[in-house]
């Protein structure tokens, strides 16, 4: 594959920080996050928008970063899994995934964390069915999904301030 020489300068807010990077016109966001910005929490699985491992938020919209051109995020806000925890304090979705064993190999987990967090910001009290449909684009070959769903519904309870 020929890499074009004409690089573009892009300015975006990434995990709350104003960030500038260079990218090729055809380069996807997932690749720039990992290879240019060293934010390797975001994983690349299928690279065709099927697996959800590269899920990020762009202006609070859940997307696959393998299907977004890096140049498209000019002036936008991007959140990756690196921006989810508050310092040393895990986000409830992360904490509950740990407690429920909602991960094994961990490759899908950054995408699951981002997607589940987006779900709970959109719908603080999802039914199990709503959670399963929302997360249908995050493939996991280890857990069988059940523990992930239990963790997400439990995190929702915590975030609503209800006792577990």
């Amino acid at each position: 594959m020929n890499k074009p020489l004409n690089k573009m300068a892009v300015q975006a807010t990434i995990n709350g920080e104003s960030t500038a990077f260079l990218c090729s016109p055809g380069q996807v966001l997932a690749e720039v996050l990992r290879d240019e910005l060293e934010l390797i929490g975001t994983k690349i699985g299928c690279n065709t928008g099927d697996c959800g491992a590269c899920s990020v938020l762009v202006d609070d919209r859940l997307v696959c970063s393998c299907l977004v051109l890096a140049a498209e995020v000019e002036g936008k806000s991007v959140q990756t899994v690196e921006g989810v925890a508050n310092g040393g304090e895990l986000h409830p979705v992360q904490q509950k995934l740990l407690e429920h064993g909602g991960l094994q190999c961990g490759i899908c987990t950054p995408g699951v964390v981002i997607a589940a967090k987006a779900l709970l910001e959109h719908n603080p009290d999802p039914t199990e069915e709503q959670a399963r449909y929302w997360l249908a684009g995050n493939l996991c070959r280890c857990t069988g999904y059940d523990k992930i769903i239990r963790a997400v519904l439990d995190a929702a309870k915590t975030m609503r301030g209800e006792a577990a």
Partner: protein
Amino acid sequence: MAVQEFISPTSLSEAQQAVSDGAVSSWLAGGTDLLVGIRLGARDPARVVDLKQIPELTAIEIDDASVRIGAAASAFDVLHNSDVPSLFPGLAEALDLIGSTQIQGRCSAGGNLCNASPAADSIPALIANGAQCRILGPDGERMLAVEDFVVGPNQNALAPGELLVELILPRPTAGTSDSYLRLTPRTEMDIAVAGAGVSITVDESGNCAAARVAIGAVAPTALLVDAAAEALVGSQLDQAAIDAAVEAVRAAAAPISDKRGTAEYRTHVVGVLVTRALAKAQDRITEARS
């Protein structure tokens, strides 16, 4: 990828300008087909022109006569619009069946239409609702019905330099509703074996005053089946009328056999889907009246 240039125009005239030199360009809406196509080598544009900074392309506007959906408005935005899902529940059903939450955050009805897959979910729903395409090109504007926009598998009617600006749907009159149903082996994240979109108008006495029946994934393009509509209009949507409509869609269907189903199976199933979609649209009309 050998994309040499990325341009993000902020107006229709800038978009026209961006492709006026004839370089191999692709319009970028949500990118959920284009970027996959580039990665798989099926598409090889030198220039990508992003449409999402052009206000008309992402707007959703509703007035007394029509609903205008910008060609690059995401499925997520359409599904969370305050009015579109209640005006066109069938179109919403179709958009909600496309891909995952992540894909719906980016994919658009306009992109689904331009990509022109025979199995595209939103196309039968747009056809059933009588949607028109507003197209802007070097020679000015033209309108084209959605059923005439797709000319073959993965082929649309856009000439070089032309842009699909928006989809214009007539606002449903009283007693009108739509529905879209498809069959897939999985419940989520799958491609239609067959699909059916219908829109019907039923008057107070239960008489079917207008109908549009469209089928997907059973021919090289989604089809508007006039003969099915003719069988329904003027009837009480009784069994004989529905049987005649089903017979008409099965006669119009010309599916292929592939791993998702045989031609015989698809032909059978599309009739079942039309029956159920009609019942669903009818229930919606009854519910709105009660």
